[in-house]
């Protein structure tokens, strides 16, 4: 812990801290271009020069390259250093174009700030400027190479940090060029971070291009709700329209970056089709009329059939406020327990996964970066939770071993061992890992009862093709110092998470640190689980609707059709309802069927609390008040000159306000803070984890290990899993992301393809599908044989797809 003096102020920093970081701790911002805390130092730009006055080093040195040492005396305003900085900036600015007014970086440009603060105000260079041709880098990033100052941040981020190779550097001297070898869409799903990381305007945000300046934006801290990780965001909005997400540093969750899905998903909030008026039987009505009619008709139904006749349907993307008020509505009125997902299979896995988590085995996303072995079972990070892949990349850069056990051909931006295991065999695979971990000598550590159970496990576990490999890995895990265990919650069956918990508990005894990490299906699935949502399944509810026991259904921010597989059955059941109330902020298949529709606010307008996949409570602050953007009310021309008291299109209210109205009969929003505390059992501060149960010493129940795969071992299984773009219901509304979404296709092992008579690139037309569905065949030998893999996508006829798959199976 060296102590050094910077600008006459002493500071003590950990060993290995660079001087530039030490100065930051004192609040002194030393100019920098190439240095970035996430990327480290390269000493390329030469603007962080400071004067070293006393101590081991003397003279002008780059503060990003020098480790802080005991007794150093640093002057950031040393005349020599200031002079050097001034001249370096002048050199960097030699070829910089004269285009700040039309550059989107203007207003939050590091180069602008540093140029002015560095004292370089007037160009002396009179010669011709070097120019570069730009490339089309796809719909997300705008390229303007003339502005480059050769700091190498982009190529370091793209290649070293993210592990993608298609953007890099060529040339020497002033001809250094950053780009792709051929123009084309960037492959990385983290490419949007280039716009954040570039200190000048070489890479700028394309969707928000020319929209506004940073100083005009209304900005607020928010949370990403497009996967369960809950990355921290800063939302920028202007003229009542959210136009930009930027990564907000969060040491526990996402670090400095976010993925492109989270960055470009905001379009749903300002899409022209967004429902902004209340509807009664499809006809526009005022909010008051709709709310009154809703409560009157619900009261009538309650009178007729009792409180059991009304069912509540919540959502995993709703804020904790909405979810907690739904739970309150149930407890106050005695209506049916709210159900938060129509995907019962996933709900069961989530339930068993979250019951496995406890106070000691839960780890945060950034902790994975420090793991030396990461085991992923049934998890596809790039598709389900992209930032997890970036964390794995960081772990792998530090020498970590990454192992994926999955029926899908999991791709990661880093080297990893992939073991293809059929979907039904995942539990068995984990059992083999446990056996491998315990095989040599650890049995002795178990008590008699546990030894018995272990024997049963050993006897009952079926043999699978990869068994030997898995046991070897299991054994290797016992030698790891910091193993992390990641388990998906959509593909595996409910037995897998407890087994992973068991594996972690076993390994825990021999390592420094280990933990479990479960990516969940929805942004607030953890919240739904806390509120008892895992106990209420959708299937019985649907059966009750079909049986006529449930007369009214209140659906809050959930498109059941995107979650429930059998579209026709669901449609028929909804048709039989006496009253279908839908509250949502986006148009969907179910909003069109609603008897009463109430428009809700998005996270940008309402804000809210969210629990991420590890149970961390995070707050999203409202950014805008709501209403149609001036861009829309003006039709692209100047804003209309009509003056009114309300905001056009400003009808929507937060969903929890409607629910509170149903619960209390008042339309004024009640104070939801006590409710939240009640829901979380204790007051949890923003950014803290909710209290999880303490670790249990019990051996988990593993009865179903030996059951083996259901049905024929040689049969086909259809796996519908999340893809990076196109699967998340809100992000799917973004048109720029739609451009990046690949054609809808099925991925199979070549063996399976041969059996079915398919070749790569075949187009299969699914019969009787509405809208007509065409599937492209892709072959991938890293997939498990017998698995038909399709991305989860909204708006496709899944019933027809399943029917066709069943038909294939029958043949």
């Amino acid at each position, binding site marked *: 812990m060296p102590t050094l003096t910077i600008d006459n102020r002493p500071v003590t920093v950990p060993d290995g801290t660079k001087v530039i970081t030490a100065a930051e701790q004192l609040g002194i911002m030393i100019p920098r271009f190439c240095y970035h805390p996430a990327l480290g130092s390269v000493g390329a730009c030469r603007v962080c020069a400071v004067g070293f006055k006393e101590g081991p080093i003397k003279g002008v040195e780059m503060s990003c390259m020098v480790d802080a040492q005991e007794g150093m005396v640093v002057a950031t305003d040393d005349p020599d250093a200031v002079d050097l900085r001034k001249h370096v900036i002048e050199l960097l600015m030699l070829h910089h174009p004269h*285009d700040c007014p*039309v550059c989107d970086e*203007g207003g939050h440009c590091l180069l602008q700030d540093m140029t002015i603060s560095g004292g370089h105000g007037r160009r002396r260079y009179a010669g011709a400027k070097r*120019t570069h041709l730009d490339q089309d880098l796809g719909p997300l990033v705008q390229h303007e190479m003339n502005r480059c100052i050769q700091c190498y941040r982009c190529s370091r981020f793209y290649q070293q940090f993210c592990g993608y190779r298609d953007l890099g550097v060529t040339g020497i001297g002033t001809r250094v060029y950053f780009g792709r070898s051929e123009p084309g869409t960037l492959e990385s799903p983290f490419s949007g971070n280039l716009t954040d990381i570039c200190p000048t305007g070489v890479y700028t945000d394309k969707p928000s291009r020319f929209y506004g*300046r940073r100083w005009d934006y209304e900005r607020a801290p928010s949370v990403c709700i497009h996967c369960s990780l809950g990355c921290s965001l800063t939302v920028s909005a202007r*003229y009542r329209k959210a136009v930009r997400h930027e990564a907000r540093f969060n040491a526990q969750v996402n670090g400095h970056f976010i993925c492109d899905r989270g960055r470009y998903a905001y379009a749903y909030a300002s899409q022209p089709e967004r429902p902004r008026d209340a509807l009664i039987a499809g006809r526009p009505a005022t909010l008051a009329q709709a709310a009154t009619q809703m409560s009157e008709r619900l009261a009538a139904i309650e009178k007729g059939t009792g409180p059991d006749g009304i069912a509540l349907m919540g959502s995993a993307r709703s804020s904790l406020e909405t979810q907690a008020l739904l739970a309150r509505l149930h407890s106050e009125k005695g209506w049916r327990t709210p159900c938060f997902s129509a995907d019962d299979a996933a709900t069961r896995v989530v339930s068993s996964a979250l019951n496995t988590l406890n106070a000691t085995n839960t780890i945060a996303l950034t902790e994975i970066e420090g793991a030396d072995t990461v085991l992923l079972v049934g998890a596809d990070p790039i598709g389900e939770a992209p930032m997890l892949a970036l964390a794995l990349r960081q772990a792998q850069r530090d020498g970590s071993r990454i192992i994926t056990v999955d029926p899908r051909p999991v791709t990661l931006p880093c080297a990893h061992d992939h073991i293809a295991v059929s979907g039904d065999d995942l539990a068995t695979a984990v059992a083999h890992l446990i056996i491998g971990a315990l095989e040599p000598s650890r049995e002795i550590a178990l008590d008699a009862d546990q030894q018995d159970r272990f024997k049963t496990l050993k006897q009952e576990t079926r043999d699978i093709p990869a068994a030997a490999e898995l046991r070897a890995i299991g054994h290797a895990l016992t030698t790891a110092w910091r193993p992390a265990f990641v388990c998906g919650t959509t593909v595996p069956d409910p037995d897998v998470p407890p087994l992973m918990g068991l594996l972690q508990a076993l390994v825990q005894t021999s390592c420094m640190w280990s933990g479990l990490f479960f990516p969940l299906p929805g942004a607030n699935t953890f919240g739904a689980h806390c509120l008892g949502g895992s106990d209420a399944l959708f299937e019985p509810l649907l059966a009750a609707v079909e049986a006529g026991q449930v007369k009214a259904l209140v659906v809050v921010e959930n498109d059941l059709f995107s979650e429930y597989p059998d579209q026709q059955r669901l449609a028929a059941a909804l048709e039989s309802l006496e009253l279908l109330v839908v509250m949502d902020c986006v148009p969907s298949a179910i909003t069109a069927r609603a008897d009463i529709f109430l428009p809700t606010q998005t996270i940008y307008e309402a804000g809210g609390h969210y629990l991420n996949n590890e149970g961390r409570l995070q707050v999203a602050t409202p950014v805008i008040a709501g209403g149609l953007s001036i861009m829309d009310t*003006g039709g692209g*021309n*100047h804003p209309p000159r009509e003056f009114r008291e309300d905001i056009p299109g400003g009808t929507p209210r937060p969903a929890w306000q409607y629910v509170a109205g149903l619960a209390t009969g008042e339309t004024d929003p009640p104070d939801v803070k006590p409710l939240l505390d009640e829901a979380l059992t204790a007051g949890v501060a923003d950014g803290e984890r909710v209290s999880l149960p303490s670790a249990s010493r019990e051996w988990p129940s593993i009865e179903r290990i030996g059951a083996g795969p259901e049905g024929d071992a040689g049969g086909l299984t259809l796996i519908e899993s999340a893809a990076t773009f196109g699967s998340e219901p809100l992000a799917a509304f973004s048109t720029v992301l739609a451009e990046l979404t690949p054609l809808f296709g099925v991925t199979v092992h070549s063996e399976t393809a041969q059996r079915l008579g398919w070749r790569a690139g075949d187009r299969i037309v699914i019969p009787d599908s509405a809208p007509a569905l065409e599937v492209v065949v892709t072959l991938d030998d890293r997939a498990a044989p017998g698995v038909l893999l399709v991305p989860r996508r909204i708006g496709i006829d899944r019933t027809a797809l399943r029917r066709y798959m069943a038909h294939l199976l029958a043949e």
Partner: protein
Amino acid sequence: MTQDPSQLKGKSLPPPRETSGAEALKALVTGFATTLKHLGRRPITEQYPEEKRELPARSRARIILTRDPDGAERCVACYLCSAVCPVSCISMQSIEGQGGRRMAAWFRINFGRCIYCGLCEEACPTSAIQLTPDYEHCQRAILKSVYEKEDLLVDHCGKDPDYNFYRHAGVATEGLDKGRHEKEAPPVNVRSNMP
């Protein structure tokens, strides 16, 4: 009654000069003579609606949006004028116009608020926004003071007849590719291996 204020403060000021009667009389007469002389002078009042003074070319009044020498709109909607405006009377929206040019979708100045400080003109990097000596634009209806882009645009270059931002900017626009702006070298061939 009269007390020298210097004594109150403890500072010594020069004592007030004694005025003799003759001097006082002379002062009085001079005063009355002066006012009487003024009686015969032509009043200097300018009767505004009837008499209008020609203002100097650089005086600051109504704002215009000028065009560049090629006749295209100069404004690139960079938001600098709206940022610098101390009364926030300028609002605009930028869009991508023809050939990759950045331009204003709409541009509005509320002259009901404008204080004619000229900071917008000073901030404008493209010489688009300029103040003119035309000061007569009072309106009875307040909304008539709100000028849109169509009202602000003029068909000349204003005080800066030669400047064309896009000839210097270095961004590729329709008809003016990279390397063809003033003081620019042709684009680098990145595939060349020559040192």
